[in-house]
Structures are given as C-alpha cells and as structure tokens.
C-alpha cells in the first residue's frame, strides 16, 4: 500500500471538501453566514429546533445509552440484557435474527443457517415473555429493530407486557418499523412498497390510540448512510420517507398532530465531525419546516424532531481493529454535539463479528466518558454560532431540500423506490467512495495509509450461535405447537386473514393471534399470500 509521504501530510492532504462533497473554505467568517441566523436557530427547545428539541438538553438529562444486543435463544439474550442493565445501561435495544425479521419460524428450511445468528430468535409471544423475564416492562424503554414483521413483533411485545400486568399506556420504547429504508438500504423487506406502507400506517394509527409512550416508527437515515450514501442523501431520503409516511397516515384520516409527536428519527454518526453535527442540526430545522408548511402542524411536538444516533459501523476497519475505539469516540462526540436523544456506540471488533462482552462494555464506557469527563454536555448546542458549522448546516439543508424536490418531482418515495432509482443513487455513491479509497484521495488509517507489515489477516472469533441454543429455539417451538390450543390459533389466524383482505387495522387481529399462540411464520405466510413478495429491480 501507499507509503507515508511526510511532506504532503504536513501540507494537509485532506481534500478541501467534506465527506459529502461540500466545498470547504480555508477560513470561515462573518461573510459566510446568510442573514437571519437568529431566526434560523431559534432557542433550544423552540422552533425551528435547530439547537435541540429541549431547552436544557444534557444539563437536565443525559442521552439514553442504548447498546444494540441480542443473539441466540430468548434465554441467551435475556442474560445479555441483564448484564447490560447491571453495567449502567438505561434502556434496551433488541436485535432479532434474520428469520424473525423476515417472518420465518426457526424450523423453516429458509431459516436453516440463520437461527439466532445476528439476533435473537422469536417465534411466538411466549418467546417474547421469556426474553423479558425479570425485566420490568413498565419501567424500561425497549427499542425493537424490526421492520417487515414490526406489527407482529409489537403484538408479541404487548402480550409480554400484559403478562407482566403492565397496561398498554405504560409501555415505552420504539419499533423501527421504517419500511421505506428497507427498500433503500437495509433490505429486510418482504411485501411490496404499498402493502408495506399500509402496515407501517396500521402500527402508527394503533399507537396513536393505545400507546402514548411508544414511538411506532423510527425514520431512519442510518442504514442509508451505511449502505453507502453521503450525508446529504441520508438527510434527503430519510425526510422524504417521513413525508411519505405522514401522507399515508393523514390520507387515512388521522390528523398530523395526532401522531407526529411520536415519530422518531435515527441518523448515523460518522467521522466528519463538523459535517455530522451540521447534518442533524439541519435535520431538525428541515423537519420543523416540513411539519408546519407541508402538514400544517399546530402542536409544537409535531414539528420537534427527536433522534437516535447510531455510530457508524462502515467507518470501522478490519485492519488494526483497535483503531476503531478512536473512531467510535469521534462518532460518539458527533452524536452528542449534534444533540442526540439516544446513542449507540459500536464495539471495536464490530467490523468483524458480533461484539464481545468486553468490547460492548468499552463502547458503553466510551459513552460514559464522553458524558461525564469530556465536558461537552455542560452547555446546550456548544457549536452554535461557529461560522463553519452554521454555514455547513445551511448548505446541507439546501442540498437535502433539493433532493426532496427531485423525489417529489419523480412522484414521491414510493414511486421512486418501485423503480429502483434512489437505490441506484446510494450504490453509486458507495462505489465512488470505494474508488477514492483505492486511489488514495480518501485516507483510511491502517488501510491505505500507515499500514503495518506486521498486520496479519484478521481472524475474528466470529460469533457462532451455540447449536444447542438453535436447537433450543426449535424445540421450544415444537413443544409450543404441541401444547397450544390449535383450534383457538386457527380461529385467530382466520380472523387475521379476513382483516388482511379489508382496509381494517391489522393490530387487533395480530394481538388475537399472539394471545392464541400463533407463530410468526404462520402469520407472515398469510401476509405473503395476501400481499405477495417484493423483488428489487436490477441495480444497473
């Protein structure tokens, strides 16, 4: 690989543009600020929320430290959650295995190699009861990273809460439930875009009525960024998705102010520190404008963006993996200086494997050090007024709104996704980034600069799901099917089938199915039959 060139490094070889290609001046000053900055900023906790959703931010309440975890059977994951809570984590974030995300039972042939691998295997509401055994659902906030099967998983979760005697109006947490970004980036879609949008709307509408402490959708730029987009595309595509959801739900007759306050967002935090801070400041301001101008929001909460920040995994490297501790610290700072409401920090080994307990603890400690030792939490929005950061905030906002205009002109997100167009934008940017790594215009320490001959091929101890845990998940399911009231399950599933053919909200029928012991595979087989399955158009 390229040898170090001290002469050029001292001269500063970083290209004079941000990670997303915004040209950067040598020095910023008063002249770089457009008039009206005070109005564009507003006060912290006040419109247009550029400076943050709350007046006191971290002075009053630190962000929620939420590490994503889950693997194996419900019992295995339950043990990891107890450990994380014992270490000072304040909320849970559940990772589900791919069969659960795609609506297959653990015994399905499609699930064969994947049970319990990238998350916990959940087949029934009973599994969810075991997952939260001894963890008080009336007090904990739980994030479910689930999308195509979100309505089913929410139903299972609500049954688990019921069993603990926790009423629905006490249940707190988030279900990711952002299907549009699945087509864009994360790819655990099942049903076509229109059917997917209906299911998202069903969850949002049900939550508006029954789950006042629950975020029924987390509109996500994070995965779009991880799939290769730049910051502008991340912003533009996430907010265009938010517009599509809001249009769908208001079209069904629910007023914007009834649900908008519970919409939450999820952005990435990568390494271009100032651009990342500018990105989320721009996001809050953009959402305020969209909510008030496009949807006529009248309640302040309807236009006040709250977001979860996930530190980027794609900035981590397999080479010299301990360097990732430093990268994650910078990402964490970007999230906090941007005013995130909850943060996940990656484990340093996460480019290679499911993080070890040791690296998860270090990731949590990284957050705690930023929170308690760095001093960045002392004042609200500490970078406000920086000529550079304010100029970047304005620039990213303009560029992202231009992208939204392009999507509007193309018929909106659902139409554009069906044609595969935004998917191609993201793939193209990913390819450009890779080419810059190859030609050295983008520096990656330990990868294309400062490589070490002593670096050997990484040999991660890749997480192998314990075969006995996989078997346990399958045995549990077989035992469950033997012991349940088969007639009751069949009746509940028949009720669901009828609802799927109608315009009615699926959630009540799903709760009936969950209580009657129907499995995620049975439920999604009905949905597959009704809605069909989506396949992405060719990428080139």
């Amino acid at each position, binding site marked *: 690989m390229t040898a170090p060139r001290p002469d050029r490094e001292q001269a500063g070889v970083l290209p004079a543009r941000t990670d997303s290609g915004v040209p950067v001046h040598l020095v910023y000053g008063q002249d770089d600020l457009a008039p009206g900055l005070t109005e564009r900023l507003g006060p912290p906790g006040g419109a247009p929320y550029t400076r943050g959703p709350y007046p006191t931010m971290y002075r009053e309440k630190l962000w929620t430290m939420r590490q994503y975890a889950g693997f194996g059977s419900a019992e295995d994951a339950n043990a990891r959650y107890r450990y994380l809570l014992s270490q000072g984590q304040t909320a849970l974030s559940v990772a589900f295995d791919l069969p659960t995300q795609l609506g297959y039972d653990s015994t399905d042939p499609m699930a064969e*190699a*994947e049970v319990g691998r990238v998350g916990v295997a959940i087949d029934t509401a009973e599994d969810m009861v075991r997952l939260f055994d001894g963890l008080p659902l009336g007090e904990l906030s739980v994030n479910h990273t689930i999308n195509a099967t979100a309505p089913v998983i929410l139903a299972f979760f609500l049954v688990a809460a019921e069993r603990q005697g926790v009423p629905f109006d006490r249940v707190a947490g988030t279900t990711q439930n952002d299907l549009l970004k699945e087509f864009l980036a994360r*790819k655990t879609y099942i049903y076509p875009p229109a059917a997917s949008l209906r299911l998202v709307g069903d969850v949002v509408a049900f939550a508006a009525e029954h789950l006042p402490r629950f975020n029924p959708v987390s509109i996500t730029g994070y995965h779009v960024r991880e799939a290769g987009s730049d910051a502008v595309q991340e912003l533009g595509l996430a907010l265009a998705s938010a517009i599509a959801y809001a249009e769908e739900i208001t079209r069904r007759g629910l007023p914007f102010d009834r649900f908008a306050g519970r919409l939450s967002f999820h952005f990435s935090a990568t390494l271009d520190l100032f651009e990342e801070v500018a990105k989320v400041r721009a996001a809050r301001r953009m959402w305020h404008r969209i909510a008030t101008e496009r949807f006529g929001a009248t309640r302040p909460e309807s236009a006040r963006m709250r977001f979860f920040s996930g530190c980027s995994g794609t900035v981590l*490297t397999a080479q010299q993996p301990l360097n990732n501790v430093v990268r994650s610290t910078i990402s964490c700072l970007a999230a906090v200086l941007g005013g995130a409401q909850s943060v996940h920090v990656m484990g340093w080994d996460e480019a290679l494997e499911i993080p070890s307990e040791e690296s998860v603890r270090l990731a949590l400690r990284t957050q705690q050090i930023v929170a308690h030792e760095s001093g960045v939490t002392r004042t609200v929005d500490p970078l406000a007024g920086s000529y550079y950061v304010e100029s970047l905030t304005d620039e990213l906002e303009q560029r992202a709104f231009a992208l939204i205009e392009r999507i509007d002109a193309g018929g909106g997100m659902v139409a554009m996704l069906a044609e595969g167009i935004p998917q191609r934008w993201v*793939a193209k940017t990913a390819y450009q980034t890779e080419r810059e790594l190859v030609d050295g215009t983008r520096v990656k320490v330990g990868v294309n600069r400062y490589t070490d001959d002593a670096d050997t091929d990484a040999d991660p101890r*890749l997480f192998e799901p314990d075969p006995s845990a996989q078997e346990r998940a399958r045995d549990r399911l077989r035992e469950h099917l033997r012991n349940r009231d088969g007639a009751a399950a069949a009746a509940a599933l028949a009720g669901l089938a009828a609802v799927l053919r109608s315009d009615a909200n699926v959630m009540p029928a799903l709760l009936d199915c969950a209580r009657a012991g129907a499995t995620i595979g049975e439920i999604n087989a009905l949905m597959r039959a009704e809605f069909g399955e989506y396949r992405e158009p060719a*990428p080139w």
Partner: protein
Amino acid sequence: MSAAGAAPGGRPARVLLAKPGLDGHDRGIKVIGMALRDAGAEVIYLGLRRSVTEIVAAARDEDADVIGISVLSGAHLALTRALLAERDAAGLTDIPVTVGGTIGATDAATLRELGVAAVHGVGTPLPEVVATVLGLAAATRELAAATRAAVAG
C-alpha cells in the same frame, strides 16, 4: 483495467453475482459488480435471498464463467457447502465459486478446502477482487476452449 474483462475467445468475462441466505447487506456486492463492469465484464446480479438451486440454474443458463456470492451474516460455511454441492450435482464443477463477506482466516482456509476458488474477507482491496475474479473467468474460458479443441481433435 478495461481490457482485462475480455476473456480468451473474444467475449467478455461473464460473472454471476448473488446473495444466498437471508442476509441483505448488498453494498459490497453491488460495488464489486460495478467495478467488474467498469473492467469490461458482463455482470449478472441475481439480488437477495436466492436459493442455491436458483444460483446454479442461473449460472448454467447465463453461461457464467464465475459465480460470486456474498454473505455478511456469518452463515457463509453452511451456505457455501450447499452451493458447491448443488453446483457439483449439476455437473458444473468447471465454474469456480468465490465468496466474499465477514470471513476470517480460519474460515477462509476451510472454504478453500471445500473447493472455493477465492475468498475475499472484510478489507480486501477492490482491485484485488476484480483481478482475481477476472483471472478465474479467463481460466474458465481457456479450459472450455481446450475442452472444445480436445473434443474436435
């Protein structure tokens, strides 16, 4: 790089790319597909959640010189075993298989023992992947040409 994609026999290298299993991480395989196209290869990308039966059938129907699969969920050993068995059962042992993904040195060695032609783990430079795949494609074409010559002779 553009001339490298033209395999012996005049026609461009034909590369079949697919993701078996349930994993949806397709950033890498799309980047590699674009790089191979820029290098002159014809790339057939089957997309996500393809069964090994579908992959092998497409390799035969598309007259592929190489099959490339990508797995980032950790399920690469089981899925690759199934794919190689399916390929061999179809009598297509001449089509080499490459595997990319979150694969460490130990598993890479296991995959090569199973009969995988090349393994590209996290952090493999893009030009290396392109050169390896095009080299394998060229070898497949040469083998096919030699077989044809032997039959004709």
